[in-house]
């Protein structure tokens, strides 16, 4: 290969557990859940009315009010998180645009994935059409609702003119976005890339669809029977019964290592591996024994050029559905063999819920922070060991540990699998 390496030099987060990378990280380490009653609309008619909402977010703090009005919430999140990540990497000038002394905009690209894009705008547009007729539908609807509206708007807002697209692979999107961003740097298509995922699906129609799939976790404390939204996501627990819909965005600035060195930026970690596969099995159910997930993890290890026993931590897909958590455990056992017993595996979805197309990017952010800080966030709500699930899921409390290599799994409806591997950067 070319010898070009992709390092992480900036992080940005808008999430149910906090706005800003620091706030979110502190919540994860403290084991604080971001799951609560739905407030974005009246959900009282729904079977399940809890979600991982982003709280206290004001789009106009991050973008022009006119742009904010036209864009979907998923784009708002992306503009905010990208701004934080770029600032963190020292790439923005005083005008909040890319600082040309730090990087060439033509060589700075974006892969900003989403599961569905502007579904809130689509639903609004349909309502307008039905109630008030075609001439009242917004002329801004189409370019703002499409899944790549966020990647376009982030480019516009900050002046990033390189390789630019959105990847879509349902809940595996975030992993694909970071993997593709890494590849773009290694292959020389760009010197800097934003690898990111964004999602804003807490809208009535989407919640109805999720609810009808009968795959949502119940917000009931399994021991006391008390109504407890923060207990709805219980990955790897014997009482787990479904996932929790969440929203948010995470952005990683990936930079060619030599480029980072030349401008004096500090690498937080290096993205060294990426694997992708399909189950070719079923639209909604995962393949037995996590067979596709196994192939994605193996491909990522091969791409990274490391053996399974070099991995210290896995941020699991861990959705809290009965099937996912079982098959993912089996897949880890198959790929890592004996070493699976020594690995730490945790699911931060126990706290954030499932951020869909943003999940893999958020979990990439978690892996970078684990490597940087030597602290592994826990799987909360894990009180009833499932006899079939016997890995070390870092139950309930964060753990100090020296982590040099971390892997993040993401899997999506339709049978997408993506795995990415980050490692402590050594020149």
């Amino acid at each position: 290969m070319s010898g070009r390496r992709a390092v992480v030099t900036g992080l940005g987060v808008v999430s149910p557990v906090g706005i800003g990378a620091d706030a979110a990280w502190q919540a994860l380490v403290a084991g604080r859940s971001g799951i609560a009653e739905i407030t974005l609309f009246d959900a009282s008619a729904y079977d399940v009315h809890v979600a991982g909402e982003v709280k206290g977010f004001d789009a106009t703090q991050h973008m022009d009010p006119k742009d904010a009005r036209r864009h979907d919430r998923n784009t708002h999140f992306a503009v905010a998180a990208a701004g934080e990540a770029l600032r963190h990497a020292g790439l923005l000038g005083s005008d909040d645009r890319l600082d040309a002394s730090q990087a060439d905009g033509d060589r700075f690209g974006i892969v900003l994935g989403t599961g569905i894009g502007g579904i809130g705008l689509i639903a609004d547009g349909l309502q307008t059409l039905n109630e008030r007729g075609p001439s009242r539908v917004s002329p801004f609807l189409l370019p703002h609702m499409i899944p790549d509206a966020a990647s376009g708007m982030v480019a516009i807002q900050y002046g990033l003119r390189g390789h630019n697209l959105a990847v879509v692979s349902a809940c595996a999107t975030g992993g694909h976005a970071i993997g593709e961003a890494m590849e773009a740097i290694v292959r020389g298509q760009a010197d800097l890339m934003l690898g990111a995922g964004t999602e804003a699906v807490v809208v009535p129609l989407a919640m109805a669809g999720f609810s009808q799939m009968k795959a949502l976790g119940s917000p009931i404390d399994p021991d006391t029977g008390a109504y407890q939204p923060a207990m709805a996501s219980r990955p790897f627990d014997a009482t787990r019964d479904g996932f929790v819909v969440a929203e948010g965005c995470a952005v990683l600035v990936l930079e060619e290592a030599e480029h980072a060195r030349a401008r004096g930026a500090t690498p937080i970690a290096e993205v060294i591996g990426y694997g992708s596969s399909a189950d070719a099995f079923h639209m909604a159910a995962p393949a037995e024994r996590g067979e596709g997930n196994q192939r994605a993890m193996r491909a990522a290890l091969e791409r990274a050029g490391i053996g399974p026993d070099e991995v210290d931590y896995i941020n699991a897909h861990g959705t809290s559905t009965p099937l996912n958590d079982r098959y993912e455990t089996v897949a880890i056992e198959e790929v890592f063999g004996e070493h699976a017993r020594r690995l730490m595996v945790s699911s931060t979805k126990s706290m954030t819920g499932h951020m869909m197309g943003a999940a893999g990017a958020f979990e990439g952010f978690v892996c970078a922070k684990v490597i940087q800080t030597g602290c592994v966030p826990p799987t909360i709500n894990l009180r009833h060991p499932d006899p079939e699930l016997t890995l070390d899921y870092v139950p309930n409390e964060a753990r100090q540990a020296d982590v040099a290599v971390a892997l993040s799994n993401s899997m999506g409806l339709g049978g997408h699998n993506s795995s990415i591997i980050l490692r402590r950067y050594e020149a």
Partner: protein
Amino acid sequence: MSGERRRAVVTGLGAITPIGNDAATFWTNLCGGVSGVAPISAYDASNEEVRIAAEVKDFDPRDWMDFKQARRMSRFSQLAVAAAAQAIADSGLEVTDANRDDIAVVLNTGGGGIGDVASAERVYLEQGPQRVSPFMVPMLSPSMAACQISILNGLRGPVVTSVAACASGVQAFFEAQRMIEHGDADVVIAGGTESAILPVAFAALANMGALSKRNDDPQGASRPFDAKRDGFVFGEAAGVMVIESAQHAERRGARAIAEVAGGAMTADAFHISAPEPSGYGATKAMQRAMRDAGVEPAQVDYIVAHGTSTPLNDATETKAIHGAFGEAAGRVAISSNKSMIGHTLGAAGAMSALAAACAIRDGLIPPTINYEHPDPACDLDYVPNTARQAPVKVALINGFGFGGQNAVAVFRSLD
């Protein structure tokens, strides 16, 4: 890279389009200057501002899948599954346990299952959340066309969907080429699909002023580069190619018709719907794509233009071609298949890829129809109105999207 680049060649074609439901018919009609634009049949548009579209005609999903599968699949997925089945059959590829892990799918789209969102929203508003279909979420996901192709054909390599608005379809082909070059797959089923002939999409696009309003002259409505163009005609389609490594094709004795030689993307970073007026981003994308493919402007014989028939796009694209080609711009043949099949958004790049590969294979360049009134801002050779016999060794395909994404791919003859 060390050693010889793994080359990616085209070995199978499939198409469901407004001018034919297989690749051969599509190509014959494209060269015959046949328009697929007609009054909208998908819904009653008689009182709407825009009443014409380039729809796929006589498509029965049950020719390609069983009834239950069809019922749980959005039309954009159905079109893609059918085009993929054709492409796989055309290539003679047999999927076996020995090769299925090394066959990838890159199937892009602009909007995915927006039609199902619209019908689910109606159910939701009229009957409440409990009546929304449990299949809605997996049906509408933009990646579902790729997944269905993977599931129905047992393909277990990477399955990826990228969205770059109207540039989506172009990106699929150089992504496929990169996967093959880097050994991520031996075979890639690559293409684009779109089906969004819906009142809400037409209302929004019409209110943007993006659509042609020549309702009483459907076949003359899409007129790229013509001085009297007034907007694009919305269309639906799916186009799929089987792309594989040259060694893999040779080993199994497959007939290759062209090589995917490279490509590139850039962003305008300018505006969410208008092209940047200097064409800077589009020029850069063409230059980088040529560099990636190792070809010089003077070697390019044919540009399959984005050519939407909007006043702004066609003038800006012309300017961008001048920027990228300099002197050579005047010598290259340029045509827009959107003059016949309208703008199929996420499938548009796949339509152009089919045109490029067939032009290379047959030495025939399809025309830009409805070209009657020269526009001083569009001063290149647009192959007006009739197809042209000419050897094509290198063809470029352009795709430019809302949000300012520019994608360009390069196809080359095999010798």
